[in-house]
C-alpha cells in the first residue's frame, strides 16, 4: 500500500501508472529519439571526460547561452560537503565543477561563485580535502563556504507542507543564475541523494529538516529555492553506504551526466536510470526518495516516472568539448616594471630626504 497522506489522488494514481509502465518497459531508462527541447531531461553519455559530458548536456539543452547572459553572476551548488577524496563519489566530481565553471566564464559570466554548506562547519578544510576548492579556483571561479549564520537570510516558503520559511544562502539572491550540480549517490537515510536533496547545502539549519521529516521539508525547500538548471554527476555512482560511502561505496560506473531545467524531472530520470540497474534504494516509494512525490504534489515539477521517461533523451557527447581554461591572468601579480619604478621612487625620495636633513642641519649649525 502506497502512502497517501499529503499526496493527492491524481498524483497517487499517476505514480501507480508510471510505476506500472516502467515495470512493463523493463530496463526503463531514457530511450527517446529525436531532438530534445528545453523541457526535456538529457542523459549525456559516451564522453571521454567529465567536461565533454557536461558540454554535451548544455548543447542538447539548447546551448549554454540560453542559460547564461554576459555579465551574469552564476551560482553553482555542487555537493562538496564531505571531507573525503574524489575517488569515493561522495562529492560532485571536481572535474564537472571545473568544467561548468569554465563554460560559464567562457559564455560571458562575470562571476562564478561555487557555494556549499559543508558538514561540520569547516568549509575551507573540507574543500581542501575533497579537491573541489582547487578545481574551482584553478578555473577562475570562487568558492564560498557557507559556515556562518551571517551568510544566510530568511526566505519565505509559500504553500509548503511544513516549513513557512527557511534560512537560505544570501548568495542565491545575489546571483542571476543558479545551477545545481549534485552527485548521484546512495543515501541510507533517504534512499538516494540527487538534486532536490543537494539543495539542503544552501540552508543554514538543516536540523529542522531532520526533525520535521525529510520527505516534506526537502519538497518545501524546492518551492523556495529553484535552480535554473540541474546537472547530475552520474559518472561513478555510489550504490551503497552513502552518503559517505565508507567502507565500500559499491561503485557502478555509468559515465553519464543527467541534466534538465525541471528539478524534479531530473531527479526522477536519474533515479529511474539507476534503479533500473537493480538498485532498490534508488526507487521512489514510501520509504525511499519519497520527497519526489511531495514535490510533485506541490507543483515544483514533474515527478511522474512515466511522463518523465517520455521526455528523457540519451545524448551522445562524443563530439563535445570543454577545456578548463585558466582565467587567472587578471589576478596575477604585475611584472618587474612596476616594482622597479616603485623601488626607484622610494630610493630617490629617501635620498632626497637625507640630503634635505643634512642641509637643514648645516643651516642650523651656521645659525
Amino acid at each position, binding site marked *: 500500500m502506497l502512502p497517501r497522506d499529503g499526496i493527492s489522488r491524481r498524483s497517487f494514481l499517476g505514480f501507480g501508472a508510471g510505476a506500472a509502465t516502467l515495470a512493463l518497459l523493463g530496463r526503463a531508462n531514457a530511450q527517446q529519439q529525436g531532438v530534445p527541447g528545453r523541457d526535456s531531461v538529457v542523459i549525456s553519455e559516451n564522453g571521454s571526460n567529465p567536461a565533454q559530458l557536461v558540454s554535451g548536456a548544455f548543447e542538447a539543452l539548447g546551448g549554454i547561452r540560453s542559460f547564461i547572459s554576459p555579465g551574469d553572476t552564476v551560482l553553482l551548488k555542487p555537493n562538496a560537503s564531505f571531507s573525503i577524496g574524489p575517488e569515493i563519489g561522495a562529492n560532485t566530481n571536481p572535474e564537472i565543477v571545473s568544467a561548468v565553471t569554465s563554460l560559464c566564464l567562457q559564455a560571458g559570466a562575470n562571476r562564478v561563485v561555487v557555494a556549499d554548506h559543508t558538514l561540520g562547519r569547516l568549509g575551507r578544510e573540507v574543500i581542501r580535502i575533497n579537491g573541489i576548492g582547487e578545481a574551482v579556483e584553478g578555473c577562475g571561479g570562487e568558492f564560498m563556504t557557507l559556515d556562518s549564520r551571517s551568510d544566510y537570510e530568511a526566505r519565505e516558503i509559500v504553500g509548503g507542507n511544513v516549513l513557512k520559511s527557511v534560512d537560505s544562502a544570501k548568495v542565491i539572491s545575489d546571483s542571476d543564475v543558479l545551477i545545481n550540480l549534485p552527485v548521484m549517490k546512495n543515501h541510507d537515510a533517504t534512499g538516494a541523494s540527487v538534486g532536490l536533496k543537494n539543495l539542503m547545502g544552501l540552508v543554514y539549519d*538543516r536540523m529542522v529538516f531532520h526533525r520535521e521529516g525529510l520527505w516534506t521539508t526537502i519538497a518545501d525547500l524546492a518551492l523556495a529555492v529553484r535552480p535554473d538548471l540541474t546537472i547530475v554527476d552520474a559518472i561513478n555512482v555510489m550504490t551503497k553506504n552513502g*552518503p559517505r560511502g565508507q567502507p565500500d561505496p559499491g561503485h557502478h560506473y555509468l559515465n553519464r551526466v543527467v541534466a534538465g531545467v525541471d528539478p524534479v524531472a531530473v531527479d526522477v530520470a536519474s533515479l529511474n536510470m539507476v534503479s533500473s540497474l537493480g538498485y532498490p534504494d534508488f526507487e521512489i516509494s514510501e*520509504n525511499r526518495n519519497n520527497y519526489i512525490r511531495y514535490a510533485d504534489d506541490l507543483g515544483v515539477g514533474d515527478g511522474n516516472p512515466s511522463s518523465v521517461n517520455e521526455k528523457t533523451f540519451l545524448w551522445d557527447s562524443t563530439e563535445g568539448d570543454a577545456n578548463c581554461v585558466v582565467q587567472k591572468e587578471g589576478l596575477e601579480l604585475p611584472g618587474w616594471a612596476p616594482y622597479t619604478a616603485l623601488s626607484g621612487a622610494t630610493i630617490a625620495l629617501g635620498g632626497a630626504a637625507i640630503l634635505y636633513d643634512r642641509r637643514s642641519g648645516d643651516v642650523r649649525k651656521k645659525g
Partner: protein
Amino acid sequence: MSGKRGNTAFDSVSRRHFLATLGAGTAISLAGVTLGGKTGRTEVLRPPGAIEERAFLSLCARCGRCVPVCPNSALQLQGLENGMDNLMTPKLVPALGHCIMPLNGCQNCIEACPAKVLQPLDISELPTQELSRVLKIGTATLDTSRCIPYSLKQPCLACWEICPVVGAITIHGGTGKGKGGGIRKPVFNPEVCVGCGACEFACPTSPKSVRVLPAGSKRTEWN
C-alpha cells in the same frame, strides 16, 4: 591546520604574564584539592591526548591556550559547574563543535599546551576504524527513545552522515515493508568510536539523542 607551538593567538603573552598565569593555575589546583576534598570527582570530556585525570587536574596550567587554537571552536574552559578543581580546565563540548583530529590529524590544542597535559598522538598510520586504539576522547551513546528513526520512524542519519570514523556507526534495518518499515537506524559501536563528538554536534533532536560521555576514554602519560 598545521599550527606550530608558539604560533598561536597567545603569542603576545609575555613570559612574566605566562608564569603568573601558571602560578595562579597551580594555586587554583591546590585550592581545588583542598576545597573539593578529592580531585576528578566529575569526569568531563577532555581534549585529545589528555593525561590521566588526577595528573591533569594537578598539572593543567589553566592558561586557556588550547581553547582559541581549536579550528572548530570545540573547547571551552570550565567554570565552577564541576567543582573548584575543574575550574578553568578545558573540556570538549560537542554541541559547540567536534574534534577534527580524525579528519585531518589536527593537533593544535596539543601543540599549544605549555604544561604538556595534552600529549602528542601518533595517528598518521592508522586507518580510521583503528583510531580508537590511540585516540579515545570518550564514547558516543544513543538514546533510542529520542532518536528520530527509532522513535518517529522517519529517516534521519545525520550522525552517520558526519561520522569520520569507519565502523563507529553502522546502519541496521531498512528491509521492512510499510510506512516506516524501511527506515534505516544507526547503531553505535563503542569500541570503534573515538568520541570526537561529530555525531552529537549533528544530532538534530532537542535534547540531543546522542551524547558523548567520558566513559572509556584513553588517557596518556605525562612526560
